[in-house]
């Protein structure tokens, strides 16, 4: 079969909404785009464990401690499925992780912001997981089969996390003035970084067009960002929290909320490694990898010894 013929068949599958599977022919750029996107998503899950993990030992009661442990554990699990999905495309997990450590591969910039109060944990659940779900629900129908299937499971857990985060904020917002202020402060710090999670504006996004044609992405960055704002405003109202944007208002003609321009300078600074916690996050991951080297070596050496004993 000629390459042109293979490509025609590939596009026909995309057109007919037939999933692309690991052994199917696919254009190299499609493969590379998926590896980049899936690994970036996996890295985000793993780095995302750090700001929340910091609060496990300080969670204010036993139930919250258990819920947070379960949530962070889910994130590690999501990282595992996603690395596995990337491996079906021929990528190597350790190589992907090294690419993150060197800065070649990115993870979601939101995790470069610090989680400094307990209210940040609820806010991360509500806004950050909420923004992630906007992206991820669309990815449940992405054209690559293993990625789409991983996303179905991940979305179920993420929406559970979002509800837990929101529920924890309800407690704060109905609590003492100190608790309410803590929640508002977290909202002030996380609102804009949450909107930045959808990536650069459509005009600036380098990967969007082709990804939409291949149905890897179903909606553009700006469309998803708008959906998120539209969905979140009423949730903030119920909590009695103010969204830190004086220009936020309902636009009857558009049928959407208008909101201020994102501070793109901050966005690009954080992407380039100059966010408040970029260095700390990578340093923590590198330390885990280096400290764990002897453990992985021991496991490999032991497995080899046992295999030799069996064959002997």
């Amino acid at each position, binding site marked *: 079969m000629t390459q042109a013929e293979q490509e025609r068949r590939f596009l026909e599958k995309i057109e007919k909404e037939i999933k692309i599977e690991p052994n199917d022919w696919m254009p190299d750029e499609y493969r590379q785009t998926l590896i980049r996107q899936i690994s970036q998503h996996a890295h985000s899950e*793993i780095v995302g*464990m*750090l700001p929340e*993990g910091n609060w*496990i*030992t*300080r*969670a*204010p*009661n*036993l*139930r*919250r*401690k*258990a819920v947070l*442990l*379960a949530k*962070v*554990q889910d994130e*590690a*699990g999501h*990282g*595992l499925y996603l*690395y596995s999905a990337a491996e079906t495309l021929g990528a190597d997990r350790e190589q992907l992780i090294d690419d993150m450590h060197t800065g070649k591969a990115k993870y979601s910039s939101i995790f470069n912001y610090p989680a400094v109060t*307990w209210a940040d944990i609820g806010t991360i659940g509500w806004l950050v997981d909420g923004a992630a779900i906007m992206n991820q629900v669309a990815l449940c129908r992405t054209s690559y089969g293993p990625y789409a299937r991983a996303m179905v499971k991940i979305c179920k857990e993420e929406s559970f996390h979002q509800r837990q985060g929101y529920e*924890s904020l309800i*407690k*704060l917002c109905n*609590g*003492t003035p*100190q*608790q309410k202020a803590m929640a508002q402060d977290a909202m002030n710090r996380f609102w804009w970084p949450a909107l930045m999670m959808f990536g650069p504006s459509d005009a600036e996004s380098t990967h969007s067009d082709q990804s939409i044609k291949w149905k890897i992405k179903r909606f553009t960055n700006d469309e998803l960002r708008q959906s998120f704002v539209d969905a979140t405003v009423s949730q903030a109202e119920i909590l009695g929290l103010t969204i830190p944007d004086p220009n936020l208002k309902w636009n009857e003609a558009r049928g959407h909320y208008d909101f201020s321009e994102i501070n793109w300078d901050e966005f690009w600074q954080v992407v380039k490694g100059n966010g408040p916690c970029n260095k700390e996050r990578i340093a*923590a991951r590198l*330390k*885990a990898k280096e*400290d*764990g*080297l*002897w*453990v*992985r*070596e*021991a*496991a490999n*050496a*032991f497995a080899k*010894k046992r295999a030799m004993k069996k064959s002997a």
Partner: protein
Amino acid sequence: MQDPALFEYVLRLSDDSLILGQRLGEWCGHGPILEEDIALTNISLDLIGQAISLYDFAAELEGAGRNHDQLAYLRFENEYKNVLLVEQPNGDFAMTILRQFFFDAFRLPLYEALMQSPVEQLAAIAAKSVKETRYHLKHTSEWVIRMGDGTDESHQRAQAAIDHLWRYTNELFYEDAHDRTLQAAGLVPKMAAIQTKWTDTVTAVLNEATLAIPTNNWKFEGGREGRHSEHMGYILSDLQYMQRAYPNMEW
């Protein structure tokens, strides 16, 4: 309080679970491999879950209107009755796994025995927790064997952890008048029986791992009486931070 001995007994179980769960929670996001990060977090979660059930029961026995969070978060250091072993720092992965292994090898036979206890609530908690503990012991035993019979470095690290932690293991089998009262009533097992099983497990696993059982006979204790190591204060600073900084609030 109707039964101070039983309250004390359940409180010890609760505190062991809480403090060890708290320690393991520090690993979250820093494990040597992703699979192990998940496993350590999972064990931590199981222990916190056990602590909730145990504190609920302790609070009921106390009958003073305290709930599980007040018991877990709002006592002074000398009121915590966990063994010194569980408050020891995580150290490297070998130290964490050996600490957990020594604890699991104690907890499993203890829960198995408590399942037979006429104290229904205690038997029910033991029956639920025994399944989790069996899995924890399997997991830690496998790692002890892997480390012991892995590389030279892993062998040395595992042996160093054993040599360091050994001094804290005797306290697992601590008994005082409270225990003897409960034992005489046939409510809880004698610690000698648990210790025999612990020794069997530890000997078998360390032998398979080609690791040596220490000959030092240091016996550190104090935790069961509320006398802790210097580490405990720091654990409580983190654990109690929110409850102390924002008193009487709901989260």
